[in-house]
Every structure is written in C-alpha cells, then in structure tokens.
C-alpha cells in the first residue's frame, strides 16, 4: 500500500476509535469555547491517547480549511470582484467560481494572511524599522485590546510647579496601572492610604480613597474634568497612537536590539494633550514598552508621566471590578442619590492626587461633627 494511503487509513481508523466526548472537547477547544475546568481533562487525554493527537491535528486542519474555504490566494481577485461592497456581505450567497463553491471574502482571514505574508516580505527591508510613522501605524494595526498590560507609572513634577500653592506636592508619584481595552485600574500609595480608581467594562469610572466608600460615574455622566484625568493619567494606547500619527511630527531617536525609540512633537495648532512624547516599541512584537509624556503650558513642562511596561499577561476579570478593591459593605455613591457626597468624594480624590498629605475631607467633617 502507498505510504500516504496507509497513513490516511490509519488516521481514519484512529479517528473512528476516538471517543465522541473527546471529539466534542477538541471542537470546543478549537472554537475557543472549552470551559477552563475541562482543559485539564483534555490535557490528560491528549497525553495518554496517541490517536487523540492525530485527531486534534486533523480537526485543526478542518477548522482552518473551513475558515479559509474559497479564500485561497489564487482566487482572491475573482472573489473580490464577486463579493461586492463590504456593506452587502451579510446578504451575499456563496457563488461558484471555476466549479468551486466560494464565499464572499472573510476580510479578517484574508487580511491576516496578507499581514503574515507582508511581515515575511517586510522583514527583508531594513528601512521599515527606521520609518517611525510606519512603525507607529503597524503598532496601532496590531494592537490587541484583549490582553492585560501592567505599567509602572511615574509622575515627576517640575520644580516650578512645586512652589507656592503646590508646595505640598511630592516630587515623584508612583502607581501601578492595569489596562485591558477600555478598562483600567490604577492604584496609588498616597501617604500610606491606598488610592484606587478604574473604568469597568461598561465604561463607568469609579474611585475610592479609603476602600470604605466608592463614587461611581456612569459612562453617560462623566464630567469633563474626570474625562481629562482619564486621558492624561491612564494609557489608552489606540488613542495615543492615533494622536501621534495625526497630531505630531515623528522622529526616530534610536533603534537598538530590536527596540525603536520614537520622539513625537505636536504640530502647531494640533490638539495633542502633551508638549512632547517619547515612545519605545519592540519592533518584533510591536509591544509598546515605554511611553513618556511631558505635560504643561506655554511650552514649559509641569509634569512628566512615564509608563513602563512591567508585564503582559492574562488576569482575572475581577481585577477590573471595583468590588475587588473595596471593603465589604463599602458605601456606594452613584448618580441615583447623595450626589453631593459623590461630588465631595471626587474633589477629595483629585486633591489626593495633587497633594497626597492633604487631610481627608471626611476626617475633617467627622471632627467638625464631633466638636
């Protein structure tokens, strides 16, 4: 018997011998739909059953072929002509081209394949890494907002800003920032107290000064001052990268050991929210490793905020849930009631960010009440 035929029959027989529940588990794994608890079982079965690996292979190829059916490279141009405008794709039917069934293009798959090929081709062109705008564009295009990134954030205030009414300011202010898509959570150690704020998956912004209470602004009621704070204190990479491309002159500062450093200076009349910025990008992975933003007015820097990437990982959803950062029974001040108390908490939170040693409004209130 010919080798490929023998191999094929063996695989076919192997697949027949595979338990149906295992087949279902493998399908669910490939669909990114397998519950975490079942992963361990699947892992053990794959390790103990040699036929299971062949089945996994066969099934992974089937899933891949299904995702790509009709979108083979040689057929791209014909399919594009047939597929019509993107807006009509949902209503399109599969059509026959050269006796084969093809479907309207799955743009994501084709784009991904094209990107793969593009990467392979581009890796031979050394000047790609040296073009800062193109590198920022690629970083923006490849940005994945499903990963969790942890940054160490340092804010250093300029000497001029620490005189007079701002003399209470620390010269440096460290915090830890976790970001996933639009959500973030940032914790500061403010004079021994843990100051924490975040934005949840619904877009609501919340903050807590003592973990005994929390103020919440729903996405539709976020005041301008709070929005401004979100923009300058947290790192929403797509917004920043878009602003770099749209508003700034970009210059390559250095490129060493796979890390490119790019400096950005806003063009005259642009709406950029910084005086200048510096960004470090890993050219292989397109990960943003460091961002430094200088803020201020009249061309004088008042504060420098630097975000240094500590880790890229996957954390539990509860990280971005305010309940994980509050004590049990914490008071909640939202838009429903006690608006005044929520406004006071917001003021206190801002004050703590500016002058960490400021007395708590609540403690001063309590002492007034007791006297």
């Amino acid at each position, binding site marked *: 018997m010919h080798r490929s035929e023998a191999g094929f029959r063996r695989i076919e027989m192997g697949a027949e011998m595979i338990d149906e529940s295992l087949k279902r588990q493998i399908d669910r794994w490939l669909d990114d739909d397998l519950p975490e608890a079942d992963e361990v079982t699947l892992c053990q079965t794959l390790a103990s059953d040699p036929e299971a690996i062949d089945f996994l*292979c066969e099934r*992974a190829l*089937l899933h891949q072929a299904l995702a790509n059916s009709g979108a083979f490279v040689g057929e791209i141009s014909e399919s594009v002509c047939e597929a019509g405008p993107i807006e009509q794709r949902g209503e399109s039917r599969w059509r026959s081209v050269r006796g084969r069934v093809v479907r309207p293009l799955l743009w994501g798959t084709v784009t991904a394949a094209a990107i793969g090929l593009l990467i*392979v081709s581009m890796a031979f062109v050394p000047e790609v890494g040296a073009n800062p705008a193109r590198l920022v564009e690629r970083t923006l295009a490849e940005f994945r907002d499903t990963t969790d990134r942890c940054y160490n954030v340092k804010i250093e205030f300029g000497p001029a800003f620490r005189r007079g009414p701002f003399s209470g300011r620390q010269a440096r202010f460290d915090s830890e920032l976790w970001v996933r898509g639009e959500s973030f959570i940032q914790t500061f150690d403010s004079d021994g107290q843990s100051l924490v704020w975040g934005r949840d998956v619904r877009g609501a912004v919340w903050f807590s000064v003592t973990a005994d209470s929390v103020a919440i602004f729903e996405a539709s009621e976020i005041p301008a001052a709070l929005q401004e704070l979100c923009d300058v204190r947290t790192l929403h990479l797509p917004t920043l990268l878009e602003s770099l491309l749209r508003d700034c002159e970009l210059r390559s500062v250095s490129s060493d050991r796979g890390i490119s450093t790019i400096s950005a200076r806003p063009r005259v009349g642009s709406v950029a929210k910084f005086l200048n910025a510096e960004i470090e990008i890993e050219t292989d992975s397109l990960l943003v490793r460091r961002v430094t933003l200088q803020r201020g007015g009249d061309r004088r820097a008042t504060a420098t905020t630097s975000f240094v990437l500590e880790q890229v990982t996957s954390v539990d959803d509860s990280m971005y849930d305010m309940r994980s950062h509050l004590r049990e029974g914490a008071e909640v001040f939202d838009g429903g009631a006690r608006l005044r108390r929520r406004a006071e908490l917001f003021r206190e939170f801002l004050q703590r960010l500016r002058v960490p040693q400021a007395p708590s409004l609540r403690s001063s209130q309590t002492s007034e009440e007791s006297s």
Partner: protein
Amino acid sequence: MSDHRESETRERMARHWLAAEQPVRAYIAGAVRSFSDREDLLQQVALTVARRFDEYDEQRPFLAWALWIAKSRIIDHYRAGGRRPQLLSDTLLERYAESMVRHQETFSRRREALEDCLERLPERSRSMIQRRYHEGLNIEQIAAAVRSTPASVRVTLFRIREALAACIDRKLASDVSKWGPK
C-alpha cells in the same frame, strides 16, 4: 546580498510560507486557546521565519522547520507571565508537529474535497458554517442569531463537522481507488 539574490530569496521564502501558512495556523490553533493569542503567535512565527530564513536547509521540509519555530514560540508564550498550564506538553507539541507534517501530504486534496462537500450541505448547515467561520461569530452569538441555545449550536456544529470529515474521507478514498495514489 545583491538585489537579484535578495529578490530570489524573498520569492522562495514567500512561496514556502504560502504553502505552510495554513498548517502552521492549524498547529497554533490546536495548542493555544484564544483567537487573538493565535494571531499574535502566527505573526511572531512569520517574523522569525523571515529573520532566520538563511538558516533553513532547503533539503528538509519547510513545514517541519516552520513548525519547530512555532513550537518554540508556543512554549515561550505559555512561560511568559504566568499563563495557564500548556495544553500540550513539550513532547506532545513535538508529536503534534510530526502529525501535522504527515497530514500535509493530503492537505491540499482534503481542502479541494471540502469545497465539494460544502456544496452538498443543506442550506441551514451551510448558513451555520458561514456564521461561525466567515462572519466570525462565537457560539453564543450564533445562538442569539438563530434563536437557539449555545448547547444546541455546539451539537449542530459538531454534527456538521463530522459529516464534512466523513464526506472528505469518502472522496479521498474514492479518488485513491479510481486514480491510484497521487
């Protein structure tokens, strides 16, 4: 490297990559959970292949070499930043790559057979496949779209895939008996 040689090398590499990309994608999908991680890894593999193409020995199968790179990237991916345990141990990843190379022999014929088999699917099943793979909907989204439950969608998709796999096997077996092994 002269311009002419560089262009030849690039063309050779692009040709190899085009032939290997689908099995490499399938390999990563079998070893790594989330869609976005799979895409990230594929691009890392593509970059490494490009950077290290001069190390590739043309006497050996390109897919085996590309899968060896993919295997290292998958191991790095799991080890970086305390991710969940690997679904496939390092040894199993090796065995999985060998299986993928063996399947490559029939991959293009199976893909062609799949196109014929898809034509024969009932409209409802075809629409389910379209939603899942071409519109990129997940199980819950498909269930919502067809007003069914996720469990029922899973069962339906499983049956369709089983039917397609059986159809492909039959077509390949009949090709072998009609024309002899290719």
